[in-house]
């Protein structure tokens, strides 16, 4: 059963004002196109959850979509800080931004508890840090077997997760390769899942390599075919990170007027990702293109 739809329809159906939302991907396959569609549809009061808020959350915050950020590292990876995030967190511009803060391990463990239907996840984390004093969802738990202890985090179950993968069939069974990040558990923990891919493929392609599957159709509500949907982050085997865009955003984000102009031009001013990519131009895409390098094949065998 096909779940293929447009990003517009996926977001207008899947995301409501006030939702908690996880745009997944650890530096890889970040759902930028989805973030832009959320901005275009002027969703409000969102709780943005993500280990690494990255540029896309900076843009959502700058556009006034957010009321809260749940995170573990808020920066522009390899470049510096997130100016819009800081402006909201420090000065309430354009909206106040409540913060719920973890370490990477803590946030990922909380998401794993959410995906697992567990009331908490234990980790040897937060030890010696001041963080637990500032987050009620972190608590010390004693081992029932000896005098050891751990910290526990409460489960995180987002209303919506948006995940990207290289390819999926129309029902939403997806293959992802390269850095996996927290994509799988974000999808499993959330109520609604929007899956966006570089390529649509046949169900046979998925079934030819079941170990490659990151999520299956039962957990996916909408499938969007959105090539280059992760630009300016990257898709392993498809395109590299557009570092200019990361450096450029660091400059733009520090100035509210420039942010508005940028949103007008690159988000409100285009209808969808296709227009954004056309505007970006073929030359820029070519510069981001890697050479091919195929994985050594494996034989699953056909058994009778």
């Amino acid at each position: 059963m096909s779940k293929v739809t447009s990003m517009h329809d996926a977001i207008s159906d899947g995301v409501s004002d006030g939702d908690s939302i996880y745009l997944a991907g650890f530096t890889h396959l970040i759902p930028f196109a989805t973030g832009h569609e959320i901005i275009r549809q002027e969703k409000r009061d969102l709780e943005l959850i993500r280990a690494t808020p990255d540029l896309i959350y900076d843009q959502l915050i700058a556009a006034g979509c957010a009321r809260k950020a749940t995170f573990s590292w808020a920066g522009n990876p390899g470049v510096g800080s997130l100016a819009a995030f800081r402006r909201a967190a420090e000065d309430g511009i354009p909206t106040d931004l409540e913060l719920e803060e973890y370490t990477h391990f803590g946030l990922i463990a909380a998401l794993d508890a959410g995906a697992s239907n567990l009331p908490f996840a234990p980790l040897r984390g937060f030890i010696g840090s001041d963080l637990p004093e500032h987050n009620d969802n972190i608590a010390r738990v004693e081992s029932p077997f000896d005098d050891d202890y751990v910290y526990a985090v409460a489960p995180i179950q987002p209303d919506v997760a948006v995940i990207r993968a290289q390819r999926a069939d129309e029902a939403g069974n997806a293959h992802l390769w390269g850095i996996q990040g927290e994509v799988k558990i974000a999808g499993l923990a959330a109520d609604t899942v929007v899956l966006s891919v570089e390529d649509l493929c046949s169900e046979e392609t998925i079934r030819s390599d079941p170990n490659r599957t990151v999520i299956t159709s039962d957990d996916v509500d909408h499938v969007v075919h959105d090539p280059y949907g992760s630009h300016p982050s990257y898709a392993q085997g498809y395109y590299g990170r557009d570092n200019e865009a990361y450096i450029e955003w660091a400059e733009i984000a520090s100035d509210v007027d420039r942010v508005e102009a940028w949103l007008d031009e690159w988000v409100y001013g285009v209808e969808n990702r296709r227009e954004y990519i056309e505007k970006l131009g073929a030359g820029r895409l070519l510069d981001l293109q890697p050479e091919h390098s195929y994985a050594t094949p494996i034989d699953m065998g056909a058994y009778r």
Partner: protein
Amino acid sequence: MNYTKSELMVVAAARELENDDSVLVGIGKPNLACNVAKRTHAPDLKMVYESGTIGSNPSSPPLSIGDPVLASGAVSIEPMRNGFNYYLQAGRLNVGFLGGAQIDKYGNINSTVIGDYDDPDVRLPGSGGACEIAGHVDRTLMVTPHSERRFPESVDFITSPGFVDGREGRKELGLDGGPEAVITDLAVCRFDEHGEMYVDTLHPNASREEVRAETGWEIEFADDLGTTPEPNEEELRLIRENLDPDEMYTDQGE
């Protein structure tokens, strides 16, 4: 040899790494340091990144810890939970690089807030993986410019534990290992039996006075205070020609 402070810092960090180390690499100077080490005295150095890439062999300097050059050609790639759970928590990584806005006398690091947590003067990025890296590797290395603002006696917020309030304090929490060295643009600092930072070697041309002026407490100097060894030709060649030709992370001014 002519070299810059950045180059000296990278090389000093590289020399902290041993051949059988598994290192959790950060971006920037730490990545350069690891690659210098791997191409010189530590060819078996295993480079692991927070993004879950194991045994990466990057063809060019990664732009972030999740760069595709870290994934293509890696030995393994783990989902985030597995990386933290099986690799970091289970003690498979023995060296980690950390940075922060503040590092204090006991090697505690603040990368969370300057000022009050609930009403900060400056909101910093936060822990990321740092807190648990600091807790679980045997030796943490810090590479950072030396300034009074960055070296307060006590950090505003402990994001990542050093020796907390001394070596005993760390032990009582159940944590092994701890800070090994702080490599600045003036000196290489280490930690004494109480877990307090001291200056082990001064960089060529750096003075005790400069270090004192840029440190927020009365820092001690080693009785046998040495001079940080200079980078050699091969190390500089690697940085300039192979690892950072565009001077993204080093000024290579001749």
